[in-house]
């Protein structure tokens, strides 16, 4: 118990002192997860909006698959991306395995279905409300999707933050394709896993505290955005 207390003390010491290793790990974590969420939004927002406004044969099956993909186990994503990027894989020539790029790719694969599926839901609900007006204006499909994406902007921001929450907290995918190499691909979650197993609880705890603080801040941001959007009736 005393060890535990001492570890907490050390952890706060590391955070307060702005420990270089700690900052490097946090920085890389943010870089990887923010990049992955941006990429996932670039794919998932148009994909979700398209699924919401376009009717085509097999759409029901596509929606079931997409919703199922939301629950993809990170280790399975890691494995699939590993197979693609490994020397013998189809993308092996790029030499991306065990680099931050590989981690971004893996988290993008993990988060895109979440962004797309939630976007589809949000946009479809809004479309039901706007449908007659937009058809009365004789808008083309692309313009319909653009109108809906913009008008759903506050809901979609929370969708993106949900995706970020998933990315920043996962460990299974990045540890497989990143390898948790010190100063290269070590991020918060992989470092926590490693340091805990080594018995270096201080760094693990410090990272855990940062991670939880981030989660609280993100949720606070979501609630603030939602509240201000509600005040202007834009949500």
């Amino acid at each position, binding site marked *: 118990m005393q060890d535990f207390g001492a570890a907490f003390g050390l952890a706060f010491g590391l955070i307060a002192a702005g420990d270089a290793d700690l900052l490097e790990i946090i920085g890389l974590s943010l870089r990887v997860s923010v990049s992955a969420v941006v990429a996932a939004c670039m794919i998932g927002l148009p994909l979700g909006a398209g699924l919401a406004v376009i009717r085509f044969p097999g759409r029901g099956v596509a929606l079931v698959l997409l919703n199922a993909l939301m629950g993809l186990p990170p280790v399975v994503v890691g494995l699939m991306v590993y197979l693609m990027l490994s020397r013998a894989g189809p993308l092996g020539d790029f030499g991306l395995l065990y680099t931050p790029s590989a981690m971004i790719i893996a988290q993008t694969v993990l988060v895109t279905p979440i962004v797309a599926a939630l976007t589809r839901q949000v946009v479809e609900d809004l479309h039901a409300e*706007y449908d*007659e007006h937009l058809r*009365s*204006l*004789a808008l083309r499909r692309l313009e319909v999707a653009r*109108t809906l994406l913009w*008008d759903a902007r506050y809901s979609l921001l929370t969708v993106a933050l949900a995706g970020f929450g998933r990315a920043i907290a996962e460990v299974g995918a990045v540890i497989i394709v990143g390898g948790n190499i010190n100063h290269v691909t070590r991020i918060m979650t992989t470092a926590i896993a490693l340091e805990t197993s080594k018995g270096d609880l201080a760094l693990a705890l410090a990272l855990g505290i940062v991670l939880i603080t981030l989660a609280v801040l993100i949720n606070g941001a979501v609630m603030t955005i939602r509240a201000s959007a509600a005040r202007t*009736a834009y949500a």
Partner: protein
Amino acid sequence: MLERALAGSAIEESMSAPAVLPLAAERLVFEAGGRRLIDGISIVLRPGLRSVVMGPNGAGKSLTLRLLHGLLRPSGGRILWDGRPLDRAAQLRQAMVFQRPVMLRRSALDNLLHALRARGVPRRACGSRAQAALERAGLEGQARTPARLLSGGEQQRLALARALALAPEILFLDEPCANLDPASTLVIETLIQQAHDEGTKIVLVTHDLGQAKRLADEVIFLHRGRLLEQSPAARFFDRPASPEAEAFLAGRIVL
């Protein structure tokens, strides 16, 4: 290519582009859930007259309006715009105001700009036209207000201003004053009157007898999905041709 050219200059060319009226519906049928809701309506709507569609609840007034506007596909019969089936050019020459206005999650001004841009009005012209539309509706003070925070009456004024800003050749209105206070109703009716004076064909659904008397040049009376009469307003209110219309005007329940 041609389509794009038409879309790009729909409003600028509205003076010179070929007219889309008269609008003719031939033996229009609409079925849903195995029930025939519109049953063989044939009607011709000519420019210059304010047509008011009346009838008891469930007569098919809103359905008829949506079929004419092209929001619903008829199960049978056809609709001709100056002899041609609905094409993009005809779509761009009409507008509709709904009973419950659809307000985008944007400011009042941006609601207008969105509609103008959707119809291909050049960006430079959009600003002044949107401003003019706001002033016309008496909403210039609310330009920056989120549209969904406007009162019910203001929202409907904005919806009407938005439709009129498109300079449509024909304007469909589906009970635009159904839930409005008298002051807002007056503003809406004044705007409708102005649009009519400027040459926009008005097709208005209402079950407010007073409003029909104030606005109608001709009355289209529907009952159970059928057209019972299309008569000049004075004659309709004076001597309705059908017993159903007579009962309706007398305030009796029409089955």
